């Protein structure tokens, strides 16, 4: 891969430290979700990798694919974005589960459905951040989530703009999950900026 001094480059050790932290965070996020919906959540795949920023939307099905995005920003000792992406039909299934409805009963997304998704984003995002913040003694505060139905590329733009200020590559943590008994799945993306990684790796190294 072509690189330059401006790109994110993590050493093997740094990548290992970040992987361990991210996995810890994702585990905590998924058990938070399991508690919320009172169901078993299976992590179907988990992948941490470095890709050119322009290829990131492909991870969630392509730039112009219509998706339901749940968006959180976080501030504190470091800043960044956390994004949950669902195909619209899976978002409806998630809503059934979150609201305790029978499968297939949610057909539209109004205020109530939107706030259910926001609450899910809240649980997943803050569980993820708490796991990382707690193990490093950092303060990371998530914003209230935004729920957006739009093209995947458009939803990811803001997060990618932050990362592209410092690098042309993104290091993403991608988790796909589903529930044991219902066909719902989603993609949980963590898109850390270079400054976020520096803070996290700095604190991890100091320990």
């Amino acid at each position: 891969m072509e690189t330059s001094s401006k790109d994110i480059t993590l050493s093997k050790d740094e990548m290992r430290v970040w992987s361990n932290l991210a996995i810890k965070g994702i585990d905590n996020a998924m058990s938070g979700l399991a508690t919320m919906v009172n169901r078993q959540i299976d992590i179907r795949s988990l992948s941490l990798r470095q890709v050119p920023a322009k290829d990131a939307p492909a991870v969630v099905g392509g730039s112009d694919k219509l998706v339901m995005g749940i968006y959180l920003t976080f501030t504190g000792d470091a800043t960044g974005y956390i994004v949950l992406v669902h195909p619209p039909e899976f978002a409806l299934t998630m809503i059934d589960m979150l609201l305790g409805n029978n499968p297939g009963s949610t057909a539209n997304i109004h205020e109530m459905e939107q706030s259910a998704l926001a609450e899910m984003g809240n649980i997943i995002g803050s569980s993820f951040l708490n796991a990382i913040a707690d193990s490093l003694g950092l303060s990371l505060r998530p914003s209230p989530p935004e729920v957006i139905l739009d093209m995947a590329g458009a939803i990811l733009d803001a997060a990618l703009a932050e990362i592209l200020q410092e690098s042309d590559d993104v290091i993403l943590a991608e988790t796909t999950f589903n529930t044991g008994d219902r066909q719902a799945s989603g993609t949980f993306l963590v898109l850390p900026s270079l400054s976020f990684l520096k803070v996290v790796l700095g604190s991890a190294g100091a320990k």
Partner: protein
Amino acid sequence: MVSKSPARLAKRTETQAEEASIVVGLGEIWVTRNPKAVLVTFGLGSCVAVCVYDLEVKIAGMMHVVLPSGNNSTLNGRSPGKYADSGTPLLIQRMENLGAARTRMVAKIAGGARVVHGAPSETLMDIGQKNVEAVKKALEREGITISAFDTGGVHGRSVWLKTGSGLMMVRTASNGYIQF
């Protein structure tokens, strides 16, 4: 090493003559003098598609801007169109290199929406609007007129530019197609 077979070369020439889509990714600049080429960028949120064309020689270019300014940081070649301020002169220069004339160039721009409201820093607050302003300024500096724009709002866009006609087409997730 595999050498290019004549059949493969022939096929390539054939597709070049047909309508070819060129996808312009995040931070990329593409220029073409194939009159049948369509430049396209998918799923723009806060990003801006800068479309420039010279109808007389049928040369067109598209740039996918992500941020307003690189503050004079050096570009590393992988994302030459990342910043509005440094990318715009490059786009124009590349079109001139193909034979387009600055005096005949016309620009159309689309994007710069506010899909997400929150931002973790002041710099990133309403980045779409900042991108649009920076693109307008950069085009003005280059002496290029904007003949149409579809910017702002809260929805993502996909944008097509037809080299042969200079037509820009915009599709949003909520409204279908609009032509400019």
